[in-house]
């Protein structure tokens, strides 16, 4: 899974660039995220707007990313497409993440536009 990074003062946006976060991608995604999140920005936003398919392995990988960040850093999500949002909703994992409609609104939350 290819990830891109953009830094905005207190917030790092990590964007998933591929359409499938599935069992075949989960392990490599975790490793890519581990490298991408290195740093000290208090907020880390994972932008999933390019992901059209997420299965339970992909969901588990996103949860592991949440656990990877040491407080006070925290992981937020942005841009869940409908099939991805459904998996979060059905498993009730939407209750443990702050989820923004898109990356721009995630940034607006800390006082930065794009």
């Amino acid at each position, binding site marked *: 899974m290819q990830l891109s990074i953009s830094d905005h003062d207190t917030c790092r946006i990590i964007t998933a660039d591929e359409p499938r976060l599935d*069992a075949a991608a989960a392990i490599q995604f975790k490793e890519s995220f581990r490298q991408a999140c290195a740093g000290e920005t208090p907020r880390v936003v994972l932008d999933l707007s390019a992901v059209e*398919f997420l*299965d339970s392995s992909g*969901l588990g990988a996103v949860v592991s990313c949440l656990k990877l960040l040491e407080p006070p850093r925290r992981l937020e999500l942005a841009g869940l497409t409908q099939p991805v949002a*459904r998996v979060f909703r059905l498993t009730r994992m939407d209750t443990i993440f702050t989820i923004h409609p898109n990356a721009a609104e995630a940034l607006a939350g800390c006082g930065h536009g794009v």
Partner: protein
Amino acid sequence: MGFERHMLRADPLAVRHTLQAIEQGPILQAMPADSRDCTLLVLAEVLNNVAEHAYCGQGGPVGVVLRHDRRGLCGRVVDWGAAPPWPDAPPPRAAEPETLPQGGFGWGLIRDLTQNLRLRRRRGCTILSFHMPDNQGAAG
């Protein structure tokens, strides 16, 4: 109406390629987007379970049959791997979200999205069958 049959090796990449083929196939292309997404998710969970548990990550054959009739879509997945430890019913749900579970979501998703879910063992193979309800958008 329609019928499709796929045979694959149960490993994550082959599962991905088969799901992509099924997505482009006539049966799923005739379904509304929400129902199509839910069907692909259920098949992903079932096939990944087979790869991970029935064949313990060693790979093995698995067959998928999809049939669309007046009642909606009926799916059947057959494998020749180890018998599931729960012959009569799927296992319980994943842990509560607050405990940050990293797995165990699959069966909950399968149960939430299907009807008439049935798992049985016959002559050395495991057969899982299910229906996808037509009003998936409202349910999921």
